[in-house]
């Protein structure tokens, strides 16, 4: 959702503008590094000059894919936001850069998102989404077994987390510079509630898309590259003398040594649980005004009609537990657990399918009517 002018006050708009400018400047440097080594690795002179065409085309892709509708049910449909996808496919710096450029062009050319809100929009949708998604992705890829299916599973979780993270970031900005006196708890609940749902859709699409790219061009997925074989010479009938000795390839970089990952994995899960539990505990320290006002004023139905209302995790606090802080913390832990469970589920399903269908054959199916 593109924030318009007037939503956030001028000082905070300017401040986020500065944050966004700094982040984009850093990304410009980082993207050169990321794009220099990606893809078919054009040896000579690859470097800074790959950045503009590749990042430009990835930005065009994100722009286009935001128009690809995914039908949900009964005529409604959703589309990708693309921050997580960009981070995973081309790396976090390029991801920030591409999404920022898309937002900039939408603001300047289509008046979609206010000009003064550009900083807010970039901070929120380009920076937070991409950075959070990539951090989660890297962490999971490190702890999961070194397989392609792990990349898919990690993409799922990364995208799932990134969308509510952006919602939280927006709430933060709103707390600093919001122009209407809607209580922060209410904004937080509404934003996070809706965006958890959006995040699930984003996660499924992102994981499926990353999976589709990995099946065909694994070398294009940032962080999942192939290995090189030595060169071989064949004899030409035109050549006076054949040279058949294989020449060792210069490129082949050795794979990183495999480490025992179990302790890291366990530590990661523990850390995630502690963070989620702890943060939620403190987050719910500020009492949520939504229920109170709603009950007082009798407009319950109107304001609470967002889609998570029947979920046991609605508003991030578990029902039937008296202490609201404890409940909030518990909800966080359950959330992380559910996320991990779903991620693992995706991982298992994907692995099973990959065993059934050889990866090579999956390629042409990307055209369209593959596997419904």
């Amino acid at each position, binding site marked *: 959702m593109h924030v318009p002018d007037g939503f956030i006050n001028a000082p905070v708009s300017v401040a986020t503008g500065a944050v966004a400018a700094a982040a984009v400047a850093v990304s410009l440097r980082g993207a050169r590094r990321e794009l220099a080594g990606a893809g078919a690795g*054009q040896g000579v002179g690859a470097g800074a000059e790959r950045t*503009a065409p590749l990042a430009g085309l990835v*930005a065009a*892709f994100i722009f286009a894919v935001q128009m690809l509708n*995914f039908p949900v049910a009964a005529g409604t449909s959703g589309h990708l936001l693309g921050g997580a996808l960009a981070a995973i496919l081309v790396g976090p710096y390029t991801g920030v850069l591409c999404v920022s450029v898309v937002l900039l062009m939408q603001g300047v050319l289509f008046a*979609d998102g206010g000009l003064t809100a550009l900083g807010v929009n970039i901070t929120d949708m380009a920076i937070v989404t991409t950075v959070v998604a990539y951090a989660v992705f890297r962490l999971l890829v490190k702890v999961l077994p070194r397989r392609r299916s792990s990349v898919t599973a990690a993409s799922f979780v990364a995208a799932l987390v990134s969308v509510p993270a952006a919602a939280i970031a927006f709430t933060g900005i709103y707390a600093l510079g919001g122009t209407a006196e809607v209580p922060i708890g209410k904004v937080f609940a509404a934003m996070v509630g809706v965006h958890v749902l959006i995040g699930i859709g984003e996660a*499924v699409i992102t994981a*499926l898309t990353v*999976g589709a790219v990995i099946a065909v061009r694994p070398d294009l997925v940032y962080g999942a590259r192939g290995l090189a074989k030595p060169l071989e010479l064949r004899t030409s009938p035109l050549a006076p003398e054949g040279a058949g000795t294989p020449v060792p390839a210069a490129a082949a970089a050795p794979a990183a040594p495999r480490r025992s990952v179990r302790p890291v994995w366990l530590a990661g899960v523990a850390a995630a649980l502690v963070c989620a539990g702890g943060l939620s505990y403190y987050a719910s320290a500020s009492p949520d005004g939504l229920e109170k006002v709603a009950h007082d004023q009798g407009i319950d139905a109107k304001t609470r009609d967002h889609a998570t209302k029947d979920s046991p995790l609605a508003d991030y606090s578990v029902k039937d537990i008296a202490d609201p802080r404890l409940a909030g913390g518990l909800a966080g832990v359950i959330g992380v657990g559910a996320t991990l469970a779903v991620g693992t589920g995706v991982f298992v399903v994907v692995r099973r399918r990959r065993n059934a269908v050889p990866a090579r054959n999956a390629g042409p199916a*990307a055209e369209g009517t593959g596997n419904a």
Partner: protein
Amino acid sequence: MGAGHAHKLYRHGHSPVHALPAHCKIAAVFCFVLIVVSTPREAVWAFGLYALLIAAAAVAARVPAGFLLKRLLIEVPFVAFAVLMPFVAEGPRIHALGLSLSESGLWGAWNILAKGTLGVAASVLLAATTELRELLLGLQRLRMPPLLVQIASFMIRYGDVITDEMRRMRIARLSRGFEARGVRHWGVLAKSAGALFIRSYERGERVHLAMVSRGYTGTLPVIDATTATRTQWTRAAALPLAALAVCLLGWTL
């Protein structure tokens, strides 16, 4: 087909506003919107004056009112949000038409609607009177990093090409009897998206090859060097300066 999506907003013309250099216009619009956003929301009359200023600029640019109003539809989602605001905001409440509304929520709704609408109108006016290429060059002259401008111009140059590829893939799916109707079909759509990414990336690589084949080393040569005269800057500054006067009045009155 067209030269990027700007053609949808751009209206060819020869008005004084069209003739101004792009960087003057971008700076003017940005300052104008910033001033609008800084205006206290209680100064209702000030927003009326801003609207008059925009209308005057639109007349000078010979952009018809209908065109401008139609483009304002883009902010409809925020109208919905603003409408909700009087119900959820806190503070003293007033009763009207049998509804209980928050006073600060009403002000908030007004604030977002007024400022958002003026912001969109100013942006639309900018996009309607400035060619895409000029906009990008204008951003570059305003010291946006050249690399960012290059990325943006590649995005615009190939946005249509890629959207077109996406459309052809959709036609190919439909021709083979596939129609996405629900979540079950997401796999196929995601595969299309994946294929689209691969095609985009590979095209990026080919474009890069074509560029380095002609001696590209990381910077696009700047061939034209338009500079704005003092008169042009003064003309462009008329809008934000008038707005600034209104804004200052709004704070003092």
